[in-house]
């Protein structure tokens, strides 16, 4: 019988949901931060056969040496099958070896497009943006070329916007039929958006974002309220299963023992 945690933070729920979305024995390209935590949690629970790929060059690693603080960290090379550099990792992706890309972003729109470049008015304000973000890194490439992508991010109205300042990592463009294929892309696009408030997918026809489940304590209304655009709601939307005690324990005692990415305070 599943033993659920009595209290957990939205971030812990986010990580657990990220982990549960990962299928066993799939190749997963890991973005930095929370995706690495979720992948490790999945490896320690239901998906020991996951094959992680890190953009700095490691394939098939076990993160048992400690949570990497960077996708270029030596810890990502532990027990790897294959170890090269950035070009090799992205070429694997372009070729089709990656089942899932696991990425984040600062802003997202209804079609799963992400911004991690700038807040401001592009292209006019490109040379002097209101807020300059770190830039695409590899996320823009993963979004294009992984077979599918999982997006993980905090759910706040300022992050969920109808129109992005800048389109860094492409989802379904404007939702028009075959938009990705016409642009020259190979991957199928975003599969799930996992947030602190909901699990979302995309309508098959319109490619518009849709609530599949609400996180414990949230409702369709509370999720909609935290979203800068109107969401579709799946007719079978359900309440997401809360974290297990064991999942929370693993996060803090086996994965991010130093609290680099996962905060420890209890909010709920």
């Amino acid at each position, binding site marked *: 019988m599943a033993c659920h945690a009595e209290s957990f933070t939205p971030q812990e729920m986010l990580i657990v949901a990220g982990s549960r979305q990962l299928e066993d024995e799939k190749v997963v390209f890991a973005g930095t931060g929370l995706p690495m935590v979720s992948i490790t949690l999945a490896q320690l629970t239901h998906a020991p056969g996951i094959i992680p790929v890190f953009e700095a060059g490691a394939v098939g690693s076990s993160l048992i040496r400690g949570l990497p603080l960077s996708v270029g960290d*030596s810890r990502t090379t532990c027990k790897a099958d294959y170890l090269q550099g950035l*070009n090799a990792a992205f070429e694997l992706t372009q070729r089709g070896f990656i089942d899932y890309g696991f990425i984040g972003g600062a802003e997202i729109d209804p079609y799963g497009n992400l911004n991690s470049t700038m807040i401001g008015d592009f292209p006019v304000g490109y040379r002097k943006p209101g807020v300059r973000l*770190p*830039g695409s890194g590899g996320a823009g*490439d993963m979004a294009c070329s992984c077979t599918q992508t999982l997006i993980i991010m905090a759910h706040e109205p300022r992050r969920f916007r109808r129109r992005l300042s800048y389109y860094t990592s492409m989802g379904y463009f404007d939702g028009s039929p075959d938009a990705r294929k016409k642009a020259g892309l190979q991957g199928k696009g975003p599969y799930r958006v996992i947030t602190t408030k909901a699990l979302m997918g995309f309508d098959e026809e319109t490619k518009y974002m849709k609530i599949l489940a609400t996180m414990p304590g949230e409702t369709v209304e509370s999720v909609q309220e935290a979203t800068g655009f109107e969401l579709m709601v799946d007719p079978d939307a359900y309440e997401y299963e809360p974290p297990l005690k064991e999942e929370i324990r693993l996060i803090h005692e086996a994965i991010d023992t130093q609290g680099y990415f996962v905060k420890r305070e209890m909010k709920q």
Partner: protein
Amino acid sequence: MYWTGLSPDEARESLANKDKSKKDKRMTLSKAVRSFVSDGANIGIGGFVNSRQPLALVHEIIRQGRKDLTLSFQSAGLAPELLAGAMALFPDRLHIRRLEFAYFAHEYAGISPMFRYLAENGMVAVEDWSNYNMSARFKAGAMGLPFLPVRSPLGSDIMKSNRSRTMECPFTGRTIGLIPASHPNVALIHVQEADMYGNCRIKGQTFTCPEIAMASQHTVITCEKLVEHEVVTAAPARTSIPFFAVDAVVEVPFGAFPAMCHDCYYFGQGHIAMLRQAAEEFRKGNKAGLESYYDKFILSAKDFDDYIGRIPYKELNLARQMESRSLELQKFVESC
């Protein structure tokens, strides 16, 4: 089409006319920077985020002062951040004109405040690319090709921010991206081992260091330790950068600190936090902390050894231990 650094034809011509013989390329950090890093240079920065950042070379460039620089990298933190901070504090000493890059921040340690400062004040021209784009641009340069085709990030604003093109593939009829080669004037690369001729043995991920070195007009290598040439020729498949792509070799232990260096030391986390904090305060208007950082660790230091000597021993030792202990099992198995 404009080229920063060298155009493909210029890069070819320069290499064809170069002495590619196997000669002793060891020199001091100061001489290497004086000889190969000029005002106006496009600098290719090796490493990845805060791994193997060429910080000994960056410190020396700040000490010597350079103007009108272009920095080219895929993902980097400390190296461009220290240069950006120097520009913010001492614009007459160091000036960055342009950035060609994919990601400029510290991953677990957060954003790069000095990058935000320069970019949000419009003090530097930026050209955004993706990580694969920048890696493939160096690769095109290393391959002697004017461009490579790429499939990402087609359709994004990144492709509108830079000099990439799209075309219809003449074989498939589908849209494909083309990204121009990058040929920096000089590559700055930190590695674990090199011989006196410049053959480099990179441990762990190679990142894009071999491609940057082979694309650039000149390459300056700092290494944790010099190794005998015979070590290289005994296992030539482990050479990541061949000698004829290298112009200078400088032995600098801890040459990437507080960035990490696979098999040598982990992140100097306390030092990175201190620097980042000072930079964040500068961005918010308080300059004193950052000024004092530069004064204490870079400008008043005679050389990089002098800087390392000013880091508390226990910080260095912790970084060494964290890396070596976590690699112990792997190395034990490998040695069997």
